[in-house]
């Protein structure tokens, strides 16, 4: 059973370098169980999804990307992908709601489109979130459009996430009346509802954990629903607590290790043992740091999930593996 049964929109954020795009992708695979359609979208123009799934750069159009992680009896749903860019979103929006005709072209000619998508404060973010909103709210009236059971958004980093989701509020403050204002208000209603969850990706280091805590506080102040914390790139736990302590203190039993190595069929040299002991000491120090940061994460009072660091990098198979771990921990 998923921890987030009511959530339709999963927003995934995190400090740069923590792997939020990887987690968003794995989450989309995990959510796509039998009979369920999932949309994975990105808004930062980086084509990260295309790279991760090794497909051609995504257009502003929903594309079938792949099938989800199979469930116990092999059933799979479908994951679709969408790359949202502000300019296309604005043009679509204008043609959908206003049938501007000649004026639409004039807007472009006078640089209004460019102004709106690059300069005007907040408009860019409203357009991007507006499209996400449309995908989540979509209903069966439009027969050609796919209805999604879940939408996963690979969102901007933690430092900007509240502003990003709250921006319709900000814009609404500027546009005091009119249809934009009305639409912004409706969007905020969805983003603040239990149908949305903002998940934060972190690694077990000081600054990302601090940023996660700050991000959660900001989201709560803005009344945006905080989801889970995904602790990414956790180091392997091949040593138990006693051995870690001994590794830190430099008191691991050298003779025993040498004997074991020989029993394992390895030619023992002093340099080899020195190297293994030095690696153990490094690892133990990192693990101590991880443990102290893990305690801070536990104190954040939100559900948390852990994903391992993958020494070989993450390929498509690795994404499914991460998806399996998220599902096993109840995130999807």
């Amino acid at each position, binding site marked *: 059973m998923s921890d987030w049964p009511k959530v339709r929109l999963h927003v995934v954020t995190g*400090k*740069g*370098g*923590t792997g939020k*795009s990887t987690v968003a992708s794995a989450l989309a695979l995990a959510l796509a169980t039998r009979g369920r359609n999932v949309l994975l979208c990105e808004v*930062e*123009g980086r084509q990260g999804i295309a*790279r991760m799934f090794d497909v051609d750069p995504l257009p502003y159009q929903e594309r079938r990307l792949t099938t989800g992680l199979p469930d116990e009896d092999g059933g799979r749903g479908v994951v679709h992908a969408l790359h949202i860019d502000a300019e296309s979103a604005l043009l679509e929006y204008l043609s959908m709601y*206003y049938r*501007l005709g*000649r*004026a*639409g072209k*004039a*807007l472009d*000619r*006078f*640089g*209004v489109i*460019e*102004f709106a998508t*690059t*300069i005007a*404060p*907040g408009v860019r973010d409203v357009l991007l979130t507006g499209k996400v909103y449309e995908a989540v709210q979509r209903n069966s009236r439009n027969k050609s459009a796919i209805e999604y059971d879940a939408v996963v958004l690979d969102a*901007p*980093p933690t*430092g900007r996430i509240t*502003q990003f989701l709250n921006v319709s509020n*900000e814009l609404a*403050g*500027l546009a*005091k*009346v*009119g*249809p*934009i204002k009305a639409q912004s208000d409706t969007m905020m209603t969805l983003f603040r509802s239990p149908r949305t969850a903002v998940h934060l990706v972190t690694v077990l280091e*000081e*600054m990302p954990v*601090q940023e996660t805590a700050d991000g959660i506080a900001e989201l709560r102040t803005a009344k945006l629903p905080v989801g889970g914390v995904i602790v990414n790139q956790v180091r392997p736990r*091949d*040593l*138990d607590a006693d051995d870690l302590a001994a590794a830190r203190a430099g008191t*691991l*039993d050298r003779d*025993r290790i040498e004997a*074991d190595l020989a*029993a*394992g*069929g*390895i030619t023992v040299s002093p*340099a*080899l043992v020195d190297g*293994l002991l030095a*690696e*153990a000491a*490094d690892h133990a*120090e990192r693990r101590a740091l991880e443990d102290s940061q893990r305690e801070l994460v536990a104190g954040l009072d939100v559900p948390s999930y852990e994903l391992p660091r993958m*020494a070989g*990098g993450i390929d498509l198979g690795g994404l499914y593996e991460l998806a399996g771990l998220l599902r096993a921990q109840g995130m999807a």
Partner: protein
Amino acid sequence: MARSSAHRPSRVGPATGPGHHADPLDVDALLDDPRTGIIVCCGSGGVGKTTTSAALALRAAERGRKVVVLTIDPARRLAQSMGIEELDNTPRPVTGVQGSGHLDAMMLDMKRTFDEVVLSQASPEKARQILANPFYIALSSSFAGTQEYMAMEKLGQIHRDAQDSGTYDLIVVDTPPSRSALDFLDAPERLSSFLDGRFVRLLLMPAKGPAKLMTAGIGLITNALTKILGAQFLKDLQTFVTALDTVFGGFRQRAQQTYSLLKADGTAFLVVAAPEADALREAEYFVERLSEDEMPLAGLVVNRASPDPGGELSADEAMTAAERLRRTGDGSLTAGLLRLHADRVRMVERERTLRERFATAHPQVATAVVPALAGDVHDLDGLRRVGNLLARRH
């Protein structure tokens, strides 16, 4: 490329293809050169730009230079160690610097920098009008790109002051983690194109010219905008643009000046990356963009590389031995050590491949590789260690 030729098997026959690898980056030569006046650290988010900037600045100061480091958003404890807990746009001396030099540090306050620019450019009355405009308030605090623009604005200010009064001979700048790689390079041009754009002229028109200039096209647009955004929105925007019109001339001029400053001989760009596919791809973009704009690129810093395990034991051998130990049921500690070793070897190999690919594509880019420290950096000692690692030539 950090992996020096000494580590490579000696080659027989002519060097071809990937054999062309870049030189190591000589950080101390860069810091010691009196002609180096500005060092700009750029790169994607989460690669350790801020720590790198601070470590370079401290090292330069301890080697005798008068340095100021302009950071964007340091970790709290790092900020504390540099004496910049408060965000107030004033450089503050860092205590504990050893040697004959001097180090000041400051953290960029975007909104305040923007306000200062407006106050210095406009008449007091006009400035008040601008600062109170809802458009300005939104723009100055949330416009994507404002932070980049303001970082460059502040750099220009500090540089002018330093030249006038001789306070600093080296400025180290940490750049905001841009959404699109080099927003701060684009900011001046974007601003100019906006100001010269037809849309702004259109907005200014009712205030400036007679109504008869309103062509049918313009009527269409204002009607459309009013319909979508409401009349108030358009009115606020118009007031804002009109008010800023006088200010923007100086704005644009200085943006251009800062841009030329970045291109000048005394500036050195360092692209910071992590040894990850994504970060190196971004770094590649930075490198290409800098060379397109003829910006002086000094080199690449690959941060937090997995430390080389040394020794001869391969990952496969280690895993085989660990498996053998697991089957006999003894030596769980040793099996654990072997698995850790295999993990480390795999990381190091993957990172090396990534770096070599980068070097093959960009053989002209000198590189420094900084191994990951086991702990976090949050004091001057930590920065000193990073500085040592940065300067260690491979």
